[in-house]
Every structure is written in structure tokens, then in C-alpha cells.
């Protein structure tokens, strides 16, 4: 897909998170930490990464996934690879 804006990625990510772990879209904001704030565990993170791959066309390998602590981290990662 064409390069997405930060807001588009945030919206897409919120949709994925809602679908996989049932967290309300409004809860998903850039500063939120996946583990501490959203209570998302490592296996759900893998499912989210796979869904994000389908949605944004950007592969997030397991090694990278460990470094993506916040919603903002994922947005930056996707934007950097799409650029």
C-alpha cells in the first residue's frame, strides 16, 4: 500500500488489537505500552504482528518484535519500512 500516515497506522493497529484481544479502539493511543498498559502478552503480540503484516505489507520478525514496547514504536517501525 502507499505510505500511510501516523493516524492511519494508529487506526489500523487499533482495529487489529480490538479484533485479536478485544481492547476498545479508544484505549489504543501512541504512548501506551503493550504489556504494562494494555495487558497484551507476547503471544498476542505475535498475532498482532502477523495481522499488521497483512494490513500494512511490512514484516515484523520476532527479533524486532521484542523491541517494540509501545504503540508509537510500532507506528514508527511501519512508517520507516514503508518509507
Amino acid at each position, binding site marked *: 500500500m502507499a505510505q500511510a500516515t501516523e493516524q492511519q497506522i494508529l487506526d489500523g493497529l487499533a482495529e487489529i488489537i480490538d479484533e485479536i484481544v478485544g481492547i476498545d479502539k479508544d484505549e489504543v493511543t501512541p504512548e501506551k505500552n503493550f504489556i504494562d498498559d494494555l495487558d497484551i502478552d*507476547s*503471544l498476542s503480540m*505475535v498475532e498482532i504482528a*502477523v495481522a499488521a503484516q497483512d494490513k500494512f505489507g511490512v514484516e515484523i520478525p*520476532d527479533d524486532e518484535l521484542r523491541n517494540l514496547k509501545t504503540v508509537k514504536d510500532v507506528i514508527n517501525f511501519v512508517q520507516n519500512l514503508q518509507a
Partner: protein
Amino acid sequence: MTTPTPRARLRVPNVTPGARILSFGDYQPSKVVTNDDLAKTVDTNDEWIRSRVGIAERRIAGDDESLVDMAVHAGGKALAGSGLAPDDIDLVIVATASHDVPMPNVSAPTAHRLGIHAPGAFDLNAACSGFCYALATASAAVRGGSARNVLVIGAEKTSQWIDWTDRSTCIIFADGAGAAVVAGSDEPGIGPVVWGSAGDQADKISIADRNSFITQEGQAVFRWATTAIAPIALEACERAGITPADLGAIVPHQANLRIVDSIARKVGATNAVVADDIVTSGNTMAASIPLALAHMIERGDVRSGDPALLIGFGAGLAYAAQVIQIP
């Protein structure tokens, strides 16, 4: 290459159009190990185990209970349910990846103890997908005329390959056996198998050497299982000529309840019961699919004639899927 001119023509048997499962059998050791029991010896707890892998309790064999003992119990039950006599069985296949010695195999002594006289007997190692591989092999043997009836057993004593101080594996794996009797039939009851492997990922689930235990890269395996397997399962439906809506049951290998749910969701069979035997049985590798099926039939979750989708996947990495008809 040219076909050689035969000096004598070889005779081949008449082929049977289909194969079907006559009956299932199951066996689990009597010792129940709960999450609270494990929390006494490793740093874990009931809530964590239930939410990550979906297991509440599992069965573990005693020191005096061998892989052959478990295979005999499950195989004997399936044989009794089939209405066949021991001598009607021409081939015994045991799918296992947890035998303590490379020889003798599990199948020959198991057949002997069941009173089956001199059948073909071999073990098959495709780890957690072993039962689906064995079922496909049995179906081919029956249809090709190499055996009239086949006893297929998935049996595992994983506990002898577990590091009981490793909290990432000891909470998952368990012991047990499940079996099925396969016979020829005019009406096909075992669909074509879709099988394959990804040997480039052989290190993802392994036992390093004879003094080691099962280790797995949980995240990598989880990613593979939740992405690569559903398309295989859908292909098995297509090759059997049915749609997911026709399925009465989906029986994925009971690896992890979250993997099971993910695969079932992606297959999208709205009318099907999804096996969740892992909750009380744990991950019994090659035994998990026949164990789950036997329990579902016993409880009346599925009816005779229902198409059920079996999906094996695990170490190798290897996978196999096929549609069967519930006997």
C-alpha cells in the same frame, strides 16, 4: 526413461475404492497433574498457564507405565470397538516421537500383546502430526491391497523427555495414547491427505541429544502455527470435496488452546465443534488428535457420519491434514 520390458508380469491386488475408520480408542494414565501441582516446583501459576496455553490439568504416566503399555490400552479399546478379531489386523502403525530407545519399536511388542499374529509393524515419527501421517499411510495400505485392516496408534510418553525444572515446557506436554482401526470400504471415509514440512525450521522444536530434553522456540512456533496451518487445513477440505460449512468437527493438534482457536477461526467452520481436549489432557503430541476424537465421540459432541477435519502440525517442522468421517 523407458519402461523396462517385463520378463514376468507382476500381479497387483484389486484396489479398494475407499478406507474408513471403524472405531477409536483412548487411554490416559490415572495420575492427574494440576497447574497448582506444577506451581509447587517451578515459578508459574494456574492463571498464567490457563491464559497462555489453555491447560488446566494433564495426565502423566508412572515410572512403571511404558509407552507400549499405553499403546496396548488404547489399541485394545479401538480393536474391541471395531468388532474385528485381532487376526483381522494385517498392519500396526504407532506414531510416536517420545520412545526411550530406538529399538525395538513400539508397534511390534504392542501388536504381540494385543494378540495380533505377525502383522506388519512399524513406528512413524512425524512428531505432533504423526497420527495424520499414520492415518494416511493406513488408508493407502488398505486401498492398495497391502493390508485388509490397520491398527493406527498415536502414543506418547513425553514426560521422559521433559525437563521438570523448565517452566516453558513442563506445563505443556503430557502422556497418553489414542488409536483407530482403519478398514477398506466402498464409501470413502478418509479424505486425501495434504502433508508437507519445513525442514529449514528443524531447530524450532527439538531434543538436542540423548541426555537432553524437549525445547522449543515458543514465539516462532506460535507464529508458524497461526499462519501456515490454516491454509493447509482449507486445502484438505477442498481436496475432500467439501466446504468448511459441511464440517461437524475441527480437531487441530492440541498444542496450545490459542493456536487451536486461531486455526479454527481462520478455517471459519461455523457449524463445527472445535476440539479443546488440551484443557484437561495437555499436549500429548501424536496422541492428541485421536484422544480428542475419542473423547468427543464418547461425550456425543459429534455424530456418526459427521465430516471432521484433522490437522496435525509440530516438530520437523511437519504438518498433515485430512477430512474423515466420524464412525
